[in-house]
C-alpha cells in the first residue's frame, strides 16, 4: 500500500510530462469570407467582375495535427476555395519526424516555399491584404508531393531556418482561362529565412523540369505552339508582320529553320524561380519588400520579373496599409524572341492597393481594400485599367 501511494504521484508526474502536453489532437481552422466588385469588365483582377461576387475570396481551411510520439507528428490541412467551386483539396498532408529540437524532416504533401507568404497563403488573418498581390503571387499551384528538411538556427539575436525540398507536382496548371495537364519533375529548391529583432530576410531558389500538355489548339498555349511552328518556318531576315515581310512570306512554302519553333513547348525543359524578401515590423510600423524572377528554358512562357513593396501602420485595432506591385515579361534573345513577339504572350501590369484592416475582436479581422490595376500589356495587346473594391472577414479558430 505504501509503495502504491509512493508511486502514484510520480507516475502522474511522468504522465503529465512531455507526452501529455504534446499528445493532444490539435484542431485549428481558418475562414475567410469576402465580396468584391470590379468597376468595369475590361481588365481582370482576382477573378472578379462588375456584377460583384461573394465567392472568389472565400476560403475555408481545417487543420488537424497529432503528436504520434515524441519524435513524430502527423498534420493534415483541408482547404475548400470558392474560386475552385468549393472543391476540397489537401493543401498539406505530411508526417514530421523531428530528428532533434532544431531539425525536422517532413514527407507528404507540402506547400512549395516560393514566397514570403507561401506557408500561410490562404490564412488571410496572417496578413493585411485580402489576398496576396497576384502580380507577384502568380504561380497557379501551391503544393507538391515530396520531402523537405528544415534546420532551425539561433545565435544571439539572430534566428532563422534553412529549408530544402525535393518532390514532384502533377496536376492542373490553371491560367484562369485554360487548364493544362502538367507534370513538374525533379522539383527542388531551398529557402533561407533569418530574423534579427524587427528585421527579417528571406531568399529562395526553386527549379523543376516541366512537361505540359499543350496539344489542344483551342487553348491559348496550344494555339501559340501552332503559331510558333508556323512563324518558325520563316527564314531569318524576313520580318513577319510588316508588309514586305508578309509579301516575302507569301512566296515561301515550308522553307526555313524550324529549330527555333521547337523550343515552344514543355517537354522537360527547366524553369527556375528566384525570390528575395525583406520585412520590418516594430509593432507600430511594418514594411515588406519582395522581388521575384521566373526564367523558363522553354520559349512558350516568357521570362518575367515581379516585385512588391508594402507599408502598414498599426493604430490601435486599425491597420491602414499601402502597396505597390508590378510584373513585367521579357522576351528571349535571338529567333525565339522574335517569334515570341508575334504571339499573344506578353504581359506587363502594376497595381496600387490601399486597404484597412480592423482587428475588431480576438482572432477576427475585417478588411476593406481598393486595388487599382493598370494593365499596360495583356497577352500581347494593349491592356486596360480597372479598380477592384473588396471587403472580407478573416477568422482563425
Amino acid at each position: 500500500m505504501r509503495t502504491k501511494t509512493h508511486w502514484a504521484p510520480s507516475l502522474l508526474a511522468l504522465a503529465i510530462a512531455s507526452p501529455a502536453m504534446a499528445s493532444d489532437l490539435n484542431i485549428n481552422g481558418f475562414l475567410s469570407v469576402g465580396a468584391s466588385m470590379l468597376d468595369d469588365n475590361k481588365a481582370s483582377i482576382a477573378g472578379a467582375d462588375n456584377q460583384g461576387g461573394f465567392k472568389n475570396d472565400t476560403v475555408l481551411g481545417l487543420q488537424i495535427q497529432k503528436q504520434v510520439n515524441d519524435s513524430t507528428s502527423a498534420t493534415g490541412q483541408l482547404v475548400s476555395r470558392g474560386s475552385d467551386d468549393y472543391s476540397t483539396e489537401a493543401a498539406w498532408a505530411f508526417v514530421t519526424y523531428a530528428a532533434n529540437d532544431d531539425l525536422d524532416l517532413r514527407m507528404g504533401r507540402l506547400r512549395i516555399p516560393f514566397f514570403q507568404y507561401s506557408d500561410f497563403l490562404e490564412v488571410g488573418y496572417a496578413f493585411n491584404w485580402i489576398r496576396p498581390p497576384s502580380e507577384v503571387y502568380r504561380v497557379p499551384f501551391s503544393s507538391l508531393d515530396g520531402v523537405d528538411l528544415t534546420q532551425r538556427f539561433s545565435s544571439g539575436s539572430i534566428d532563422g531556418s534553412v529549408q530544402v525540398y525535393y518532390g514532384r507536382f502533377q496536376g492542373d496548371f490553371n491560367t484562369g482561362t485554360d487548364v493544362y495537364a502538367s507534370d513538374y519533375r525533379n522539383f527542388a529548391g531551398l529557402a533561407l529565412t533569418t530574423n534579427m529583432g524587427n528585421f527579417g530576410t528571406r531568399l529562395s531558389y526553386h527549379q523543376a523540369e516541366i512537361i505540359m500538355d499543350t496539344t489542344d489548339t483551342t487553348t491559348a498555349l496550344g494555339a501559340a505552339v501552332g503559331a510558333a511552328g508556323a512563324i518558325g518556318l520563316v527564314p531569318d531576315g524576313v520580318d513577319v508582320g510588316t508588309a514586305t515581310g508578309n509579301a516575302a512570306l507569301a512566296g515561301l512554302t515550308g522553307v526555313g529553320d524550324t529549330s527555333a519553333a521547337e523550343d515552344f513547348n514543355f517537354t522537360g525543359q527547366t524553369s527556375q524561380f528566384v525570390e528575395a524578401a525583406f520585412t520590418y515590423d516594430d509593432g507600430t510600423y511594418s514594411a515588406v519588400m519582395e522581388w521575384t524572377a521566373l526564367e523558363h528554358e522553354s520559349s512558350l512562357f516568357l521570362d518575367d520579373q515581379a516585385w512588391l513593396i508594402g507599408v502598414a501602420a498599426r493604430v490601435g485595432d486599425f491597420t491602414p496599409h499601402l502597396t505597390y506591385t508590378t510584373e513585367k515579361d521579357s522576351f528571349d534573345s535571338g529567333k525565339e524572341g522574335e517569334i515570341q513577339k508575334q504571339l499573344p504572350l506578353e504581359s506587363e501590369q502594376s497595381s496600387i492597393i490601399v486597404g484597412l484592416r480592423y482587428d475588431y475582436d480576438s482572432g477576427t479581422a475585417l478588411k476593406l481594400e481598393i486595388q487599382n490595376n493598370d494593365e499596360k500589356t495583356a497577352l500581347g495587346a494593349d491592356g486596360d485599367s480597372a479598380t477592384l473594391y473588396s471587403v472580407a472577414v478573416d477568422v482563425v479558430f
Partner: protein
Amino acid sequence: MKILKHSCSILLIGLASSLANAEISVIVSNNNPNTAIDQATVGKIFLGKTKSFPDGSQAVPIDQDDGAAARNAFNSTILGKSSSQLKSYWSRLIFTGKGTPPKQSGNDAAVKQLVANNPNIIGYVDSSVVDDTVKVVHKF
C-alpha cells in the same frame, strides 16, 4: 514650474505603483535545475523559437487565459507584442505545422499548480501568489 514638478511626481508615483501592482514572476518547478533565465530566453521559449531550458532539458511554456492581467503584461513586456500581433504570429506557424502556441491554462493559481507539479513547465504569475512550491527564474 512648481505645478509641472508636482504633476510630474504624481505621474512618477502613479507609474511606480502601477508597476509594483503588476509585478509578474516567471516560475518553474523547484525540481527544475535552472535558477535564473533572462528575458530573451523566456521570450524565445514562449514564442516557440527554442524548446529547451538553458540546461538543455525540455521546456513546455503555458499561458494564462486570454485577457488575464498577467498575460497582457507578459505579452507586452517580455514578448513586446500585442495580443492581435501574437494571434497573427501563431496563425503563421499553426497552419504550417511549424508550431503551436502555449496552452491556455487558467489563472495565477492554476498555472502555479501546473508548474509546481512538472519540472518541464514554465509559466508566469502575479508575484503576489508566489510561494515555496515554485521557483522564480525571472521578474519584471
